[in-house]
């Protein structure tokens, strides 16, 4: 294609974006837009799938029948989110299994939070309350993302995420209002999950290499630091309400700005986990690889059976 044609297409594309018209799979789009979306949506899909692991770790030890059922339902939703997101990736011409192989090779990332271990029952509450809570902050604006299939998947996903956040907060509340032993369990868990939850919003704006372009394309609507601030502002009063202490000595409500000021994230820890050296990175990827490898013979069998059936149909 001529250079001129491309710049015309690019102009039309950006006009659509500026006018809040959704980009659909068959529409022309710049390669970089496509690649950014493939990277972001597949990472999101991987996060849903890897995110099943720390919670799956407590399904067999859930303390009562109701909690067990709710936890199973929640994890099942997350796997469902993974499915819709992989379908959204495929509308961009990417192959689901190839993106999964990138996860297994370490090329593709997923949300770092899932590289922390779930050690106590309180962690099930903390994951729902903080991790799904942070996911909601990230995902609600994505419902208005410029790419149609992603935006529509997010509308569906966000409805379920708010149920996840509530069930988590309910678990934590029950513990915080329980025996001293239970309250201690909740506080100890908050101490471990608070900072990793803040890290879920990614590097600070000055170090975020993708933010400016993503905002121009209306894939992103807020910067990482804006979203992080929104999360802190919403979550700190919730902790106070149930009598838990957020583990940050610099945390203070700022009357002037109307926001909470909070301490500095340990960015060394952040980058260590992103680069693959967090407490559970290895275990998480190994578990997913093992599932895929052990699924090979099953996929082969299903394909072989489908083929036999098709042949029998033809023959008859």
């Amino acid at each position, binding site marked *: 294609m001529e250079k001129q044609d491309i710049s015309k297409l690019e102009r039309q594309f950006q006009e659509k974006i500026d006018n809040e018209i959704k980009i659909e799979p068959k529409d022309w789009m710049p390669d970089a837009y496509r690649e950014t979306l493939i990277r972001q949506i597949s990472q999101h899909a991987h996060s849903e799938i890897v995110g099943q692991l720390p919670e799956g770790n407590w399904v067999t030890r859930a303390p009562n029948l109701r909690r067990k059922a709710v936890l199973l339902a929640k994890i099942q939703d997350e796997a469902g989110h993974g499915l819709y997101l992989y379908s959204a990736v495929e509308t961009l011409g990417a192959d689901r299994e190839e993106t999964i192989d990138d996860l297994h090779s370490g090329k593709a990332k997923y949300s770092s939070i899932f590289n922390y271990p779930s050690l106590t029952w309180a962690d099930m509450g903390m994951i729902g309350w903080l991790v799904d809570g942070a996911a909601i902050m990230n995902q609600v604006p994505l419902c208005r993302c410029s790419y149609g299939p992603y935006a529509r998947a997010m509308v569906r996903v966000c409805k379920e995420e708010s149920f996840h956040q509530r069930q988590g907060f309910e678990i934590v509340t029950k513990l915080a209002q329980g025996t001293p032993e239970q309250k201690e369990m909740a506080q100890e868990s908050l101490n471990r999950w608070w900072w990793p939850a803040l890290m879920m919003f990614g590097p600070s704006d000055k170090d975020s290499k993708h933010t400016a372009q993503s905002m121009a394309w209306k894939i992103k609507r807020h910067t990482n630091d804006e979203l992080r601030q929104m999360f802190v502002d919403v979550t700190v009063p919730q902790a106070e309400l149930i009598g838990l202490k957020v583990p940050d000595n610099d945390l203070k409500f700022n009357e002037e700005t109307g926001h909470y000021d909070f301490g500095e994230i340990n960015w060394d820890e952040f980058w260590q986990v992103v680069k693959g050296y967090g407490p559970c990175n290895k275990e998480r990827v190994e578990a997913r690889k093992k599932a895929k490898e052990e699924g090979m013979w*099953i996929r082969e069998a299903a394909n072989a059976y489908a083929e036999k059936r098709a042949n029998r149909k033809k023959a008859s």
Partner: protein
Amino acid sequence: MTKQEALFEYLLRRADDTLILGHRLSEWCGHGPILEEDIALTNLALDLVGQATELYQYAAKVEDKGRDEDDLAFLRLEREYKNVLLVEQTNGDFGKTIVRQFLFDHFQILLYERLMESKDEQIAAIAAKSIKEVKYHLKHSSEWVIRLGDGTEESHNRVQESVTDLSRFIDELFYQDEVDELLIKEGVACDTSEFRSTYDANIKAVLDEATLSLPKEKWQLDGGRKGIHSEHLGYLLAELQYVQRTHPGMEW
């Protein structure tokens, strides 16, 4: 044995079957071999835990000693669990999990079809509600048995081994004793011997289509209904009961 004692025991047997099988299925959560099947197995687990909850609630009411459904599910000793041995068997590979499910689903559907007619309204209601789920479970497990049996040579051999291995637990599904006799007379329970031949024919039809077969030898095991289990159950209960045993008497 009074009718009340028999009914309590009968309900525990049904509830324990579904709880323990649901527990086993939930072990797959996040590790399923294919994403769609991860979701399907978790969904099965969810249905079975739901059925168990309703059965325990009713059992607790029948017993009338102040225990609730969670006390029954989480706070009994190993010898007091009355599930059949089949459901506590380890997951093995996906094929073994499917065969275990297949053998159980075909039994459960015939049982629930009859319990829908029970004179005990509560049992009839639970059966009527659960049977919709069981129909789906049965379709899912039967289709996979066929796919794997008639898939590749490897899948055929693997799943045939599971059929051979697990078939020794079939007879116990039909176990009956004085508990059943008393409740059959009352029109509460149904006589499982009456649908044994249907069960055999139903599973044979699927296995035939899957090019699989039951072994000729018929070694049969039982014990579960009297609380005599395989060594696997103790470990399962250690996990199931962990929080309740570590932090006794708390609300969650």
